[in-house]
């Protein structure tokens, strides 16, 4: 059987499976409950707010379907309206069981991002108020803690990579990026918390801001002419047919690799944790349990390191990319 035939076949199977799930056959329910899909489902996004044992159906559902917007206060009020219903954690039309054209709902991960934003806004307003009050005297307490992070980012991440004025101007962006990713990662490590950086949409959005900052800074610092010239990659003009596609591809590969790195790191760690906890239920033995719990604790501590490391790496790589995009021209002129 050729590869394309095989793919077609599996796609057909997928479709038939989707169709049969509507009638709830036994085979598909067993497929739905396989451990891997269940773990990935737990790590993914949901239409209801959940934090540990707390499940609250308070998030608004916003759908764009067939040319108009539908607003519902919560999932249950959406189901009560009769136009849409939930099927295997997805919203579908009640009439033909297809997904709506666009789902713009406030999901669990959006709620977690808002929590992180609120936390950061409160923290940083407190710190800035204290900084204004303390004047030239030595910082204390929470002010000291955040000042050490800010100084670290300025002296070890932004300034060495981005020279001059641009570095000073971009420092707030890098600080926001670092703190936001860090807080999202750490909230995900709380018992019952969800990691918003473990969904690809969130990391992709962060990488898109990085892409915009990289190219905006490059154009602003050295002009559109130099930015276009840098597409040559420093090679002679006759190599342009080769260099321009490569440079354009690398422009898009950078944010793509940022996306995948953060997403995969967060998902991988949590999948390992879930799998270890799954072993506990599989063996149900007093002799194996301590070993599993010990190992899970170790992985959890490793995840704590990874939470800091990935926030640092995302910020550092963005700074390096900005520096590369800006710096190449200053050498030429």
């Amino acid at each position, binding site marked *: *059987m050729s590869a394309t035939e*095989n793919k077609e076949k*599996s796609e057909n199977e997928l479709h038939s499976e989707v169709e049969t799930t509507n009638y709830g056959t036994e085979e598909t329910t067993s497929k739905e409950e396989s451990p*891997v*899909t269940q773990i*990935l489902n737990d790590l993914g996004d949901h239409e209801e707010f959940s934090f540990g044992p707390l499940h609250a159906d308070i998030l608004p559902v916003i759908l764009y379907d067939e040319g108009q917007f539908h607003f519902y206060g919560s999932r249950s009020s959406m189901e009560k309206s009769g136009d849409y219903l939930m099927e295997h954690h997805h919203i579908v039309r009640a009439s033909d069981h297809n997904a709506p054209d666009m789902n713009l709902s406030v999901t669990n991960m959006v709620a977690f991002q808002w929590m992180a934003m609120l936390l950061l806004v409160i923290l940083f307003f407190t710190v800035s108020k204290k900084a204004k009050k303390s004047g030239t005297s030595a910082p204390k307490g929470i002010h000291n803690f955040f000042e050490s992070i800010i100084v670290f980012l300025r002296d*070890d991440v932004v300034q060495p990579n981005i020279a001059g004025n641009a570095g000073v101007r971009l420092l707030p962006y890098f600080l926001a990026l670092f703190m936001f990713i860090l807080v999202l990662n750490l909230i995900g490590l709380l018992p019952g918390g969800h990691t918003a950086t473990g969904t690809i949409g969130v990391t992709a959005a962060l990488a898109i801001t990085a892409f915009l900052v990289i190219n905006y800074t490059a154009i602003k610092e050295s002009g559109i002419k130099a930015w276009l010239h840098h597409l040559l990659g420093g090679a002679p003009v006759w190599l342009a047919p080769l260099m321009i596609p490569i440079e354009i591809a690398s422009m898009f590969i950078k944010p793509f*690799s940022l996306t*995948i*790195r953060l997403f*995969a*790191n967060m998902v*991988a760690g949590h999948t390992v944790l879930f799998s270890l906890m799954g072993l506990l239920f599989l063996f149900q033995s007093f002799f194996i349990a301590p070993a599993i719990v010990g190992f899970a604790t170790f992985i959890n501590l490793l995840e704590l390191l990874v939470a800091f*490391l990935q926030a*640092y*790496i995302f910020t*550092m*790589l963005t700074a*390096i990319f900005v520096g590369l995009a800006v710096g190449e021209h200053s050498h030429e002129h």
Partner: protein
Amino acid sequence: MEGLGLFGAGIGAGISVLGAGLGIGRLAASALEAAGRQPEAAGDLRTTMIIAAALIEGVAFFALVICLLMAIA
């Protein structure tokens, strides 16, 4: 046929992790050696090492994500 797909995903994950492990191992060995020769440069070396390790890890994660997609598709 589905078994073969899972088999391929498992083998692929193993090989990609093998490559990444070798790469990061070599990187750490060289960084340690360099730090041993020139202890005053240890801070710079550590930063550069972490970035290079992240890049290697990123490539390995590309492969792992493909394997995961193979396993659950």
